[in-house]
């Protein structure tokens, strides 16, 4: 049996310092929002991609904003930790939403858009809705 998860709590920034691996060239930014649509100011967003291997993590600010640099890729895996989340939640930000991607195809059509990062002037934007009518698709591993 695995060790159970617990919340990261409100004070993780003293221990889980911001990190940006080299190799990230594309800005991926967004917000973390709660079920009332309010920003989550004490979340931690981590991104991981394997090819090339680039890890980054960034705490949200008072407005729920985060930003990292990722390598050009079809998608980036995203973990979100926060006070009030007893375990991380896992999602994917698709930078290039190929309509034949098997994971995307497996999602109900009206929810697929929650996994697609939108191109903006300085990269891509990807909001995570933890709850509510626009709740992001989260994955189990």
């Amino acid at each position, binding site marked *: 049996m*695995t060790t159970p*998860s617990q*919340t990261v709590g409100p*004070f993780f920034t003293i*221990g889980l310092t911001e990190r940006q691996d080299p190799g990230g060239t594309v800005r991926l930014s967004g917000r973390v929002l709660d079920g009332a649509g309010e920003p989550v100011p004490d979340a931690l967003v981590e991104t991981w991609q394997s090819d090339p291997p680039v890890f980054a993590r960034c705490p949200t600010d008072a407005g729920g904003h985060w930003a990292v640099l990722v390598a050009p890729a079809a998608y980036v895996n995203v973990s979100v930790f926060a006070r009030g989340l007893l375990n991380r939640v896992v999602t994917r930000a698709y930078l290039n939403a190929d309509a034949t991607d098997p994971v995307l195809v497996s999602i109900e059509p009206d929810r697929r858009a929650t996994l697609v990062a939108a191109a903006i002037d300085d990269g891509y934007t990807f909001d995570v809705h933890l709850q509510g009518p626009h*709740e*992001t698709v989260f994955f*189990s*591993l």
Partner: protein
Amino acid sequence: MEPDPPLDWPAYRSTALRAPHRPFVPLPRGRTELTGPVFGGGTVSPADADLTAHHPGEPLGERIVVHGRVVDTDGRPLAGTLVELWQANAAGRYRHDGDNHPAPLDPNFTGTGRCLTDAGGRYRFVTVKPGAYPWQNHHNAWRPAHLHFSLFGHAFAQRLVTQMYFPGDPLFGQDPIFNSVPAAARGRLIAGFDLDATVPEWALAYRFDLVLRSTPFEEGP
């Protein structure tokens, strides 16, 4: 048995607007899920594992050794994986701007450490025992003394953030975070007092082993 707590846990009030409500979608494990970041010696120095030695003076509190092994569910040790730790000081106060508990900060304690596991998956920290603190979740709510742990393992799928508790804490019964874990799995979050690992005339010791998911092989790109 599922050892992880449910995300929707009303007794912990902060879950109310943050716990997702829709069912999770199973994600096939491909290369992205079966690999993970590698943190080399450039990230971590041996001094990072002694939280009592980061300032000119020694912190107040009960000096303790906290050590253990990190393995996967097949019992294989996870070598060279990053373990990060953060905690309140002996008075129950975090060195964080958001902590307004009226207990003193300790000028000789930051409360953060990290290390890489050795070839046998072992880690070891020296720190002080954290104090309990109130947190307003419910009337007279107090968190049991705990250390926050963050582990990466070797794969994205193994990532774990958890909390280590101390044996016999009288605050367990009223803590919804601890009790969010299914009863049969709660003991896995409680360190054992470890007389053999104490340092005579210097420090008590606790052992806390961690088990991450197994990732036997890559299932394809």
